[in-house]
């Protein structure tokens, strides 16, 4: 039955939960942050995630992946969200893998997919520019020169950009035409600045100052990157929504546990109806959020026509619900919720960043309206 996990999915979910609880609890993110890790991720964890099949979760088996689809990817992301796990899962295993498996040439597929699946290669997607996600307003250009292209422009919020071995870059090759390129970040004219973010997760600004690439850097067809990019972004949106579900759910669990422990006026604060009702409302919102995420992942795997609409609705819903979970969490924790020592603040920060990725609630509500014709 739709939206109800089958036995395999249940098992995957449980094993991912066990894995991240043990290998990458919230303390692991604190460690990366406090030690000012150069990489911003734990490479040994990423190798172990690859062994678990997570890095190759959407990569076909004949290219070294486990080909379990987006539902599986989402279930893994939920558990990462609960643990605030930092890894190149989104950048490499979802965005890059989707781009190359969807549109890559045979050579690109056999060159890169096995390395993505093994975790050996990390790739980052450079699509956004400026402050907000909006591919329609893209300004980075790629102009034909010789047998290749020259790229100019600036990209923001390139997840894992500073540790990427390859970049997948979206650029305009004509008015309203986008092409995707696979580019070595060491190329001449390319600079990458790591941007330390509020959530202690990896992001970078990448600028292209007349960066030249050959024609075989093109992923898919010239001028036809729009549909590929949309497919890549929708995979990313659905998986980020799953991560937001995990983060929101865990923030909520921490909060309800705290309501049962913390005493004021001689009793647990969870006895107060003012808090009970807010917590119960949040429970309902998280249940709706879970359904939305499962529906989006299901739609992606089924490849149905309205998958983009479903994903947009899910990302919009998760943006608002996860934010509510973070906000209510900090408020109900009270003073200690403001301290760095308590984890709830880390959830608030990650949720703020993740809801912004690939379109926030406002962006996706607008998209829903456009798709429905109003």
């Amino acid at each position, binding site marked *: 039955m739709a939206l*109800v996990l089958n036995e395999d999915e249940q098992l995957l979910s449980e094993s991912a939960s066990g894995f991240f609880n043990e290998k990458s609890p919230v303390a692991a993110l604190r460690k990366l942050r406090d030690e000012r890790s150069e990489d911003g991720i734990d490479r040994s964890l990423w190798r172990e995630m690859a062994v678990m099949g997570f890095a190759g979760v959407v990569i076909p088996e004949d290219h070294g992946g486990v080909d379990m689809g987006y539902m599986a990817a989402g279930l893994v992301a939920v558990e990462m969200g609960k643990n605030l796990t930092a890894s190149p899962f989104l950048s490499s295993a979802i965005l890059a893998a989707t781009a190359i498996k969807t549109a890559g040439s045979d050579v690109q597929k056999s060159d890169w997919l096995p390395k993505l699946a093994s975790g050996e290669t990390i790739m980052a997607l450079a699509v956004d520019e400026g402050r907000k996600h909006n591919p329609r307003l893209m300004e980075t250009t790629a102009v034909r020169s010789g047998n290749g292209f020259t790229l100019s422009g600036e990209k923001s919020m390139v997840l894992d950009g500073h540790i990427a071995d390859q970049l997948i870059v979206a650029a305009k090759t004509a008015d309203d035409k986008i092409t995707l390129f696979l580019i070595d970040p060491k190329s001449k004219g390319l600079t990458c600045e790591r941007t330390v973010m509020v959530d202690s997760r990896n992001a970078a600004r990448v600028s292209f100052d007349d960066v030249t690439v050959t024609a075989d850097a093109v992923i898919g067809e010239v001028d036809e990157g729009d549909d590929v990019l949309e497919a890549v972004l929708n995979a990313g949106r659905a998986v980020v929504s799953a991560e937001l579900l995990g983060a929101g759910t865990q923030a909520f669990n921490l909060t*309800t546990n705290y309501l049962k422990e913390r005493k004021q006026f001689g009793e647990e604060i*969870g006895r107060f109806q003012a808090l009970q009702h807010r917590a119960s409302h949040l*429970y309902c919102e998280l249940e709706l959020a879970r359904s939305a995420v499962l529906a989006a992942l299901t739609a992606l795997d089924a490849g149905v026509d309205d998958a983009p609409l479903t994903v947009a*609705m899910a990302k919009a819903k998760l943006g608002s619900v996860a934010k509510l979970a973070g906000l209510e969490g900090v408020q109900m924790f009270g003073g200690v919720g403001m301290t760095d020592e308590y984890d709830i603040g880390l959830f608030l920060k990650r949720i703020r960043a993740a809801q912004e990725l690939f379109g926030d609630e*406002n962006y996706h509500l607008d998209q829903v309206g456009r798709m429905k014709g*109003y």
Partner: protein
Amino acid sequence: MSDLEQFQKETRAWLTENCPVEMCEPIEHEDDACWGGRNFTFKNEAQKLWLERMGAKGWTVPTWPKAYGGGGLSKAEAKILAKEMKRIKARSPLSSFGIWMLGPALLKFGSEVQKLEHLPKIALGEIRWCQGYSEPNAGSDLASLATNAEDKGDHWIVNGQKVWTSYADKADWIFCLVRTDNSGKKHHGISFVLFDMQTPGVTTRPIKLISGRSPFCETFFDDVKVPKENLVGELHKGWSIAKYLLTHEREMIGDQNGITRPMHEIAAGMIGLEDNKLADSILRAKILQTEVDEWAFNQTMARKLGEAKAGASLGADSSMLKYYGTELNKRRFELMMDSAGYEGLEWEGERSDDGRLARSWLRTKANSIEGGTSEVQLNIISKHILQLPGA
């Protein structure tokens, strides 16, 4: 072709053949529904025909056993039937508290005699039921109800008053909570009984609501004689039936987003589009949020029903569905009123169909009160799901 595929094919053919076109128009108002019963006046011949045809197949209650007037369908078959009906936007042939509330309770708690007596009449829409639960001093605190049933050997004499009895003035029979024992805790000593509304001593008085309509009544019992065989389940233990039935009621009230026109279509008709967007950008944003929530809610409804073991109740999650579904419906009508503007305020006259929208809008305010208020639902979630202390 599998059995289910065969069933789907036959169902589609049968519906095409038998569902009158008038019954494929969306229901925009509670009054459009068919409620059945001894005194019901059908809106038109199509409504009557649709009820008769569906009733004869047992498809007003597809999953009830055939022996009790049901369709005897499996869960999977019933799903197909629902899907096929949705495909042609067919209306439900019968709206009925008998189907939604009493029926499930009788199937679970009733005697064989009671099932054979009452269920087929519910399925065919012959008898319309009302629910005697709330009292003037027992609303959210329902278990403090005081309507008294005095033991007279082979019958009880019932005295007391119920309130918010939906359509009591139109109903043929009532299922009613009465107090048969006063000695213990308030949840003990409540019994669940059935009786004919034509029994001497029963009077109803419609309550005029803010909508100007009177879907609810006060119902008075003055020495009403109720035979003992009309007790459902065990004596003094009606509270467990009441709870079971409230769960069904919550699931039902929560699910009111059936076949209705999407809000944005209605709003577009009233406000208009500019550059293919609703002309009022802030209203557009609010409608978008609400429609996304409606979608997520419907997905949740499907998921929860899918997760529940066949035939099992949703338990405390029914409170979630009741709470969220009713609040959503209120939001929907607030936005419809926003869209309608001055015209939505018209209360009388043909243009507004006698204030249809305004009256419907006002009616929705009861959604989050009847069947347990939103606040009571949140209490239930706090206690049974979140297990917060003292809830």
